[in-house]
């Protein structure tokens, strides 16, 4: 196993057959095969490092992060603690030892930042995990270069310490060195999070960590609950995405919108909305709300507009009109797109499907105040479901 090239300065750990199969089993619940492979490599790496039969580390290392599969669904790396010292494990399969590329999450998210960063080569075919170098957070920030393309901090190998013995001695002698504080990320409100989660859960989002500005992304995944939600929605798509919260429609009369819904004027500006309302709705509605629905790659990243108009009637009843439009730039809806109305037990009440050149499709119904219903927008196998309460 130890090849002729092994240096006593490196730390070589063995991967047992049991470790392989366990890690593989634990890494299956992910959205795509590359995320599965990433989780597998990270799991092997972490298990090897924590294996006390191979590494007699004092103090014993412990995992310092929660919801690891949720992390590995979107970014590689993990975090361990050795007493007060936090070490980020950065595994990869690269064979050329040219640099250490640390994803930005492990540097700029305050609760994820580490004191040391380990450069690790995982060799599954050779049953080997090789820790070939490390750096301190200071050196990474001083000598590392930030690459905005893939949002990593990259440190040339010439700045890495190749001798793991130096890590041990440093950790023994420098117990009290404090890490440079990382600025906290701007707080995120749950509504914003909800919208982002729905958007980033789409299978079309192959690189969610690059899709939105980092400060927003970091705030989203730093929160364990949101991170878990994102993971669950991505990993178990069932080809449908459902909003967790029920949208309270009555609040629209008080000009309060939630979960990605907006007054029509806010979404498209007064010019466009005038064109919408005169073109589409027969009676003058009391209130309207609109939301952009993203069916992602199914529609070449085109969005659709789901429009709901509410007209109060006598006896606590509400007349609801639902329309599905393309965005103002487009003339027609994509063919085959479906709009469906379901009740709270998911029974289908009404459905309508767009034909080749439809401007919009529409459903209307009456519901009692306090009743709930669901709307589904679907194309091919992908569906998005929104839940409402009158």
């Amino acid at each position: 196993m130890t090849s002729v090239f092994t240096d006593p300065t490196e730390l070589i750990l063995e991967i047992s057959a049991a470790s392989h199969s366990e890690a593989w089993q634990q890494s299956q619940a992910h959205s795509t095969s590359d995320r599965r492979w990433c989780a597998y490599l990270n799991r092997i790496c972490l298990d090897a490092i924590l294996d006390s039969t191979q590494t007699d580390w004092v103090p014993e290392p412990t995992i310092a992060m929660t919801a690891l599969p949720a992390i590995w669904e979107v970014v590689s790396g993990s975090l361990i603690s050795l007493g007060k010292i936090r070490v980020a494990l950065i595994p990869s399969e690269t064979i050329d030892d040219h640099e250490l590329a640390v994803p930005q999450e492990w540097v700029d998210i305050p609760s994820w930042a580490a004191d040391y960063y380990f450069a690790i080569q995982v060799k599954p075919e050779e049953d080997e995990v090789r820790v070939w170098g490390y750096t301190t957070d200071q050196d990474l920030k001083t000598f590392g270069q930030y690459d905005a393309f893939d949002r990593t901090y990259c440190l040339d190998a010439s700045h890495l310490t190749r001798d793991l013995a130096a890590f041990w001695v440093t950790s023994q002698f420098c117990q009290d060195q404090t890490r440079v504080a990382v600025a906290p990320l701007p707080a995120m409100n749950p509504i914003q999070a909800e919208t982002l989660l729905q958007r980033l859960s789409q299978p079309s989002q192959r690189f969610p960590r690059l899709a939105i500005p980092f400060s927003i992304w970091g705030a989203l995944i730093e929160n364990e609950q949101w991170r878990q939600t994102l993971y669950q929605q991505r990993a178990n798509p069932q080809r449908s995405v459902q909003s967790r919260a029920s949208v309270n429609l009555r609040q629209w009369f008080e000009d309060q919108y939630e979960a990605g819904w907006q007054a029509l004027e806010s979404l498209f500006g007064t010019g466009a909305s005038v064109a919408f309302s005169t073109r589409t709705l027969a009676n003058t509605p009391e209130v309207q709300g609109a939301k952009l629905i993203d069916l992602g790659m199914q529609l070449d990243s085109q969005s659709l507009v789901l429009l709901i108009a509410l007209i109060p009637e006598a006896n606590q009843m509400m007349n609801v009109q639902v329309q599905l439009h393309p965005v103002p730039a487009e003339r027609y809806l994509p063919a085959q797109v479906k709009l469906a109305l379901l009740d709270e037990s998911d029974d289908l009440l009404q459905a309508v499907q767009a034909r080749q050149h439809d401007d919009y499709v529409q459903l209307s119904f009456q519901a009692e105040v306090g009743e709930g219903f669901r709307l589904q927008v679907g194309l091919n196998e992908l569906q998005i479901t929104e839940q409402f309460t009158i």
Partner: protein
Amino acid sequence: MRPRQEIIELFSTFAQFESDHFRQWLSDSKLRRNIERCLADLAEPLSENFWALYWHRSWQHQPTPLARLHLSAYLQEPCYWAAQKTLTRFTNVQYRLADYFQMAIATIEPILEGFQPERSSSLKTYASMMFLSRVKDLLRRSKEADICTRWSLLRKISKKTVLEVLHHVGLLAPQIEQYRLAWMCFNAVYVQTQPRGTQKLADPDRALWRDIADLYNAQRSQLTLPGSPCDAATIEQWLTSLSTRVRQYLYPTLASLNALNPDGETMPELPDHSSDSLMAQLIAQEEHQIRSNQQAQMQTVLLTALQQLDASTQELVKLYYQQGLSQQQIMQMLKMSQPSVSRRLAKSREALLSALVQWSQDSLNISVTSNLVKEMSAALEEWLQIRYGELISK
């Protein structure tokens, strides 16, 4: 190989090989004239170490070919030493002594860049160590690349290598970005689906290339110049040529031995500011003296620490560092398992480094930082690889 002694010879002659053996030292007339001129200005003779540092400083301030060639001539022995060590340690029928020598001397620039006089005992010992480790890295990389197909190689190569290759080929920034994105999409789609890589990943088929192209087209809005959508054939072509170049880049190129022989090249005469830099160098010489004393103290600390280890571990350290045996050879000789050998060597290095750091803290009154430990680790490595070995011959 006859080791050189004279200053003029040291800085103006190169090793010539004939059918894998050292044959003779070839002199370069221009270098020789330059050295003779420098020496003529001085009243008293100065050590080879002084000149090594002088030319290194000269090269740092003005990286002229002349300075580099003087240093290249000087470092022929360390290079030879590294080539020999490589030959004995790594039995590889493909390469011979002259090849290893060539591989090593080709890495001289980064070595000169990395040399810090305050930290090493001498340029020669630093270079010896670095030549050896660089050739080893080269061999390891090419060995790992050997067992890869062109596609698995693309998966296992660093981003830095990819970018260097793309620059080297002469692509402009927007194109480099496109290739990068294509490579990123390739890595997201062409993935192992079995643990442990038991099943060799098949080459990408047409369907896979289409998936990669689709992903590329969906993502290309993030490029500074998105360009038009790419079809599968284009993506395949890009990545095929990238993988070819990457493989070429990883393998040691063995240019002809005469490439280093500078005769025939016209070189500018070095402008004469020898006097001020000589003065600076003389001062540095004094600092060097202080460092030499420190080196002697360090040696004592390390030898003492070595004796604290148990007998079999001491034996192990001797076999590995002094006699240059491989871990496999040691394993057979001492009847130990390989992990056991590795672990003991690692532990003994920790103990030695600890002793060195403790000594720095106590005698030199330096507070311990991660940087200090890093420096001590480099000093330890130098001592183990070079100076410890020299102790037998003395």
